[in-house]
């Protein structure tokens, strides 16, 4: 998720689709990957032409048509079994294929005579899957609008507007002494600081030049080939800010929980926000070997429980390393779509963290307990309009090094920071620390399958 609310504009056909300038990410898998295929203008509105071009180059058999979903909005999850999704009015397809399929499509695109104009470079989807969901949602919305316009001017689907009070609310937040999350978790009144506690944040890295962290003990390791642990995304810096940020930042409110903890920066997601299981597991191994009492993972994917994470989480816990992970943002409760806790938070030994908003209601995107044993939401943290540190943008205009983000990702480091405080306060680690967190959580009106034991609290 991690959307910047202030800059969110209503979606329209004129909206520029994001262009990723990310250098080619490591080839993480030889298996199927998704590609975006753009067709020549002649093929637009002609699904048969698009189908035949894809079939001859990729062998794709099962193809879903975006307009088939037009009664309701296209649900990407429902098309999971399809090799390709055709956005016939846009002349675009999202294709699942292997390297050979990609090569064939690229060859077809290079020819002047074929119907395929371009294929996004391999690695694009792999490296940007977090962004790509929004990207695809943009396609979905655009296709939906086109369909409705073609259907005799039926009313356009309303877009989710940014609440009119949001900018004012956020301006007010930036002028307070403590963020709402620091207040709600009572980190501001805690006697504890996380001193001597090692907190690993496995994410997109960290902005090692951030002025709020000068003089802090920070260790780092990148598990992403070809990329240093310097955060080229901002997600990692934001999460580390929440878990470990300072007691008195140079400007603005206090946003960090365990302000004297030792920070272990494990880069397991590339600068586009994605990473393979091997990188995530290697990061967990590194944090466990370094006896980090807390391992924070604001990452996930909507997959069934995996034996690998069940065991990794259990081994870490046995070694005195509590793993907390994001429950995931796959739901949209505004339209009644509620998905189960994502992997790896759906593993029993890993604490799954849901996101609450300032009113202590569950966030619309926050996932719910799954039906498999262990796949339940265990605890909640502040995860809507969360203010924290971000890297300075590489290009002008220079902006403040803070931003507001939404996500179970933002809730997770609140729990990680509180875990560090509880560890310092009680000396407990592993399963005992897990129990300290859940038994001291603050009850809310959110049902336990959405919010677990309640809102995480700092020891006083």
């Amino acid at each position, binding site marked *: *998720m*991690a959307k910047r609310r202030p800059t969110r504009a209503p979606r329209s056909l004129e909206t520029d689709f994001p262009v990723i300038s990310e250098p080619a990410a490591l080839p*993480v*898998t*030889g*298996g199927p990957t998704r590609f975006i295929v753009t067709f020549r203008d002649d093929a637009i509105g002609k699904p048969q032409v698009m189908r035949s071009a894809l079939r001859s180059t990729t062998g794709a058999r099962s193809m879903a048509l975006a307009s088939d979903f037009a009664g309701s909005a296209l649900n990407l999850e429902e098309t999971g079994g399809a090799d390709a999704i055709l956005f016939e009015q846009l002349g675009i397809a999202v294709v699942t294929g*292997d390297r050979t399929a990609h090569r064939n499509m690229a060859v077809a695109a290079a020819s002047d005579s074929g119907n395929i104009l371009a294929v996004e470079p391999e690695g694009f989807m*792999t490296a940007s*899957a*977090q962004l790509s969901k929004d990207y695809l949602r943009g396609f979905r919305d655009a296709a939906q609008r086109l369909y409705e316009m073609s259907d005799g001017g039926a009313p356009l689907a309303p877009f989710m507007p940014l609440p009119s009070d949001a900018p004012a609310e956020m301006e007010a937040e930036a002028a307070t002494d403590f963020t709402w999350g620091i207040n709600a978790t009572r980190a501001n009144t805690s006697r504890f600081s996380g001193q001597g506690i090692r907190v690993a944040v496995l*994410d*997109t890295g960290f902005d090692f030049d951030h002025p709020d962290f000068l003089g802090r003990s920070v260790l780092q390791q990148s598990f992403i080939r070809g990329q240093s642990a310097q955060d080229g*995304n901002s*997600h990692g810096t934001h999460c580390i800010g929440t878990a470990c940020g300072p007691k008195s930042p140079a400007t603005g409110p206090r946003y960090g929980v365990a302000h004297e903890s030792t920070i272990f920066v494990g880069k*397991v*997601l590339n600068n586009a*926000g*994605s*990473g*393979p*299981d*091997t*990188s*995530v*597991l*290697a990061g*967990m*191994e590194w944090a*466990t*070997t370094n006896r980090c009492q807390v391992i924070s993972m*604001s*990452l*996930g*994917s909507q*997959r069934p429980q*995996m*034996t*690998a994470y069940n*065991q*990794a989480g259990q*081994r*870490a816990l046995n*070694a005195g390393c509590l793993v907390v992970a*994001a429950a*995931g*943002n796959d739901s949209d409760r505004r339209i009644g779509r509620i998905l189960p806790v*994502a*992997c*790896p938070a759906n593993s029993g030994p890993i604490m799954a963290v849901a996101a609450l908003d300032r009113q202590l209601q569950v966030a619309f995107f926050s996932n719910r307990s799954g039906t498999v044993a262990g796949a339940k939401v265990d605890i909640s943290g502040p995860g809507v309009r969360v203010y924290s540190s971000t890297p300075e943008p590489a290009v002008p205009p220079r902006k403040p090094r803070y931003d507001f983000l939404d*996500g*179970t*990702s933002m809730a*997770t480091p609140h729990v990680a920071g509180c875990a560090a405080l509880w560890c310092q306060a009680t000396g407990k680690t592993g399963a005992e620390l897990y129990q300290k967190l859940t038994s001291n959580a603050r009850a809310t009106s959110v049902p336990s399958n959405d919010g677990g034991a309640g809102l995480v609290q700092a020891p006083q």
Partner: protein
Amino acid sequence: MAQRVIITIDDQHAAAIDKVAASLKKAGLKDTQVLSSLGIVSGEVDAKHRSALRKVAGVKAVEDEGEMHAQ
């Protein structure tokens, strides 16, 4: 076709994970990475050798490697 896999090694073979990894290599696993503390081995295997990995003593599960995303 080559595929990336995550292999979980059972507790009984926790101390002998390097030996299990060597057997996995013999069975066709390439680009092998061993995570001893967690009991995990990852690597790449040709699809036709995948079932052989499952038969190696100490292997609890062979799962497809996937992608994780920032939430």
